[in-house]
């Protein structure tokens, strides 16, 4: 039969790189700048010891974090954070896919998982500490034990929601178990999984702090707790500022990954009335 020749591919109108970066920065920094200014103004009017102005915090930030503290406290924390996040992604997606695909397994494990999920980490930490000692592994385990839940839950739900026609297609063509996972189940669940990962990132940061509030003598979380206990309020806020900054950086990195992984997904939506 006749072949269909391709359609015209017009090169898309590309805005210059400069304006695009400027627009991106505007979006990224516009609201934060606005809030910062508002906060600064508010701080000059009413001073509160526990809510210092941005200027004071910025001072404290430079004093506290610029220098060796960064290497001693921040980098090890970030390293543990990275390990914890990686562990929870691997664990959450793997376990989530298996649990989502196997109804009896889900029925077996769901109550248990819900049970474990509700146990507050501060009571859990001493037990983990007993089993693993006061080591980095302990902290990584604590981070992963909290961050895994959003990924796990979202993966399970995403896997369960795989379109029935797509599943039947794979079954009818006898696509093997592994390939079904790789080419159907995981991509179909990927929008949900990415939602879970996004949530897990911030949960992991929070747990990084909490894990360092116990049995620690260094780390970003330890510092924040220390400042807080010692009424070094500006320093404490500078630590939180740093935490927020790490959060933003993680989100940016995550955004890049997401854009790659979910290209098809955003592609479907892209067409509509730009």
């Amino acid at each position, binding site marked *: 039969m006749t072949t269909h020749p391709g359609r015209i591919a017009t090169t898309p109108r590309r805005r210059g790189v400069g304006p695009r970066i400027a627009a991106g920065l505007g979006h990224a920094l516009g*609201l934060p700048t606005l809030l910062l200014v508002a906060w600064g103004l508010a701080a000059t009017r009413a001073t509160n010891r526990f809510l210092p102005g941005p200027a004071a915090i910025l001072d404290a930030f430079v004093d506290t974090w610029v220098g060796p503290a960064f290497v001693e406290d921040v980098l090890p924390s970030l390293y543990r954070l990275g390990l914890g996040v990686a562990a929870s992604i691997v664990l959450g997606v793997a376990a989530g896919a298996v649990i989502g695909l196997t109804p009896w397994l889900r029925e*077996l494990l*769901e109550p248990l998982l819900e*049970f474990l999920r509700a146990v507050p980490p501060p009571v859990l930490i001493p037990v983990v500490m007993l089993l693993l000692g006061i080591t980095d592994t302990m902290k990584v385990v604590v981070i992963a034990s909290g961050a895994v839940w959003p990924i796990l839950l979202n993966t399970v*739900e995403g896997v369960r929601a*795989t379109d*029935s026609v797509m599943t039947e297609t794979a079954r009818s063509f006898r696509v093997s178990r592994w390939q079904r996972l790789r080419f159907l189940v995981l991509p179909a669940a990927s929008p949900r999984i990415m939602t879970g990962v996004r949530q897990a990132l911030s949960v992991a940061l*929070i747990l990084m702090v909490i894990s360092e509030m116990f049995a620690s003598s260094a780390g970003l979380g330890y510092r924040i707790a220390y400042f807080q206990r010692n009424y070094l309020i500006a320093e*404490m806020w500078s630590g939180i500022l740093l935490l927020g900054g790490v959060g933003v950086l993680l989100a940016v990195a995550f955004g890049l990954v997401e854009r790659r992984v979910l290209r098809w997904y955003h592609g479907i939506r892209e067409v509509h009335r730009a």
Partner: protein
Amino acid sequence: MSVRTTRAARPLRRGLLGVAGLAGFLAGWQLVPALGLVDPQYLPYVTDVLARLSEQLVDLAFWRRLGATMTSWAIGLSVATCAAVVLGTVVGLAPPLRRATHTTVEFLRPVPSVALIPLAVLMFGIQRQAALVIIVYASFWQVFVQVIYGVADVDAVARDTARSFGLTRRERLTHLVLPTALPYLMTGLRLAAAVALILAVTAEMVIGNPGLGRMIELSRSAGDAVGLYALVVVTGLLGLTVNLVFRFVERRALSWHQSVRGEETG
């Protein structure tokens, strides 16, 4: 015919399997001290813990504290959910707003709630409101992120359909956007429910207002491991109960959704 029995048997089977899972876990726990992996003084036997728990269950004071914790939990979760659904929908539906708030949101989300406790105490004193601030702050983000993603998940054809029939903004919201986001919202709710519970307990531990958390802290400082773990089991059971309720709601609200109906016919 067999229709009835199978339909009745399914929840039963589900329940039995779930109980089996829990029982397996408890047996594993019992083994840890029994095998000498950990001194029973620090990780007590399950049997002791359950015995203590059953003592607690007939103590009115225990129920009063449980009530206090659950009240904080319920108020905190409701406030957080309402706020997150409204804001998440608004932000999720307006891409410019989403871009503009992105950095701020990502900045605020990882702020650990425990670090906010002094601020909360400063604002509200050593009272329930201080705990509520913490609970709401932490659980808000769980729902918020899910809602943002869920709202964006509307099928292109389904949206065109709504637009072509001239559905008003409100109708589109209630009949298209929210049903699409509902599965996401349910997941967010389940995540938030656990987080809210954890923070209700943690806030009581740290701030010291009455409730389960304070009991945990008391048992802890008294070195009473059995009492401590009895309370930990209680928090776990609470999480389990909350999840059962959400599952039930989900099965009704999402009966149309692939994730639920897939299991009916599969």
